């Protein structure tokens, strides 16, 4: 990702789309950026939903990992990872190669479909 000392995800953070959807993987002259975080505070952590601007379109996404160090025993990734999602919660892509933290399994009800397409867990 392009942002340097970025921490957790907020408005205007550049983000890396991690699934194999066409929207996420086709190159564009601007990186995908967060426009809004669906949270009381404007800061998004793992498991929060955000609005992305990709290729001139608005799309919802789920945060799967960020550069900010969380509590001990939770993984810290080297890039802000995101999975594209519909309004209903269905992921757009079909596979997620990059590792995903186990803490997402706590909310099995909302993210069951995203967890189903994930391959590696950390």
């Amino acid at each position: 990702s392009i942002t340097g000392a970025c921490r957790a995800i907020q408005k205007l953070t550049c983000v890396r789309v991690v699934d194999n959807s066409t929207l996420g993987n086709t190159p564009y002259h601007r990186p995908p950026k967060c426009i809004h975080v669906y949270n009381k505070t404007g800061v998004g952590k793992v498991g929060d939903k955000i609005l992305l601007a990709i290729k001139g379109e608005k799309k919802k996404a789920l945060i799967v990992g960020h550069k900010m160090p969380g509590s001990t025993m939770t993984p810290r990734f080297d890039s802000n990872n995101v999975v594209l999602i519909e309004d209903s919660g269905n992921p757009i892509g079909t596979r997620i190669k990059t590792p995903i933290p186990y803490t997402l399994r706590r909310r099995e009800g909302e993210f069951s479909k995203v967890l189903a397409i994930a391959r590696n867990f950390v």
Partner: protein
Amino acid sequence: RVSSDGEPPKFQPPPKPVIIDRKTQKEERRFLSPEFIPPRGRTDPLKYYIERKDMIQRRKVFNIPEFYVGHVLAVTTADPYASDKSKRFVGICIQRGGKGLGATFVLRNVIEDQGVEICYELYSPRIQAIEVLKLEKRLDENLMYLRDALPEYSTFDVNMKPVPRMDHEEIPVNKLQVRMKPKPWSKRWERPKYNIKGIKFELPEHKMKAAQKWSQPWLEFDMLREYDTSKIEEKIWKELSEELEK
């Protein structure tokens, strides 16, 4: 056996048994984990004494092996959300921090082109096993610069087999000079404040000279910053050996 001459073979005395006194050899090398040494401050030493008792209790139940920064470890932790309730992570130890029961170490690995770091607490009851896969010290005590180094230096196979250890005495020092990604880095590692010897700086000469402007050569002679831990270590070592023998 019958030799070609027909005469009985020459008597060869059996080889003399070589007695290796392992007990004395083990006593010579002692490793005191850095989290036992109390930090410099005005807190009551009773607090550290109580913490040390708890740490020793935990060590009796669960074996925490000796390891330094630069070792490759595999840690199995208990997790309610994982399949089989436990998860295993392999990585190189970048940093050891904290004192007392809150001592932590950070393991780093690159999985599927994504760098992952996990900070584990040494004395957490969630940890089920710590295995040392590869024993080697590096030139620095803090390997945070691996984040800005090429990913090949942080990749370790998850199914790596433990490298067998030859001597019970020395831990080999890996004098690897790591190559970095192009600048900008997360910290300016060329500055003398970090005192890093394990990077192969490919920066031009004038930049290296400009970085030396921030050097503070008076710091090593500053007497107020001295913290002599040899006597404290002796006391703690005596305490430890007494408690562990019980």
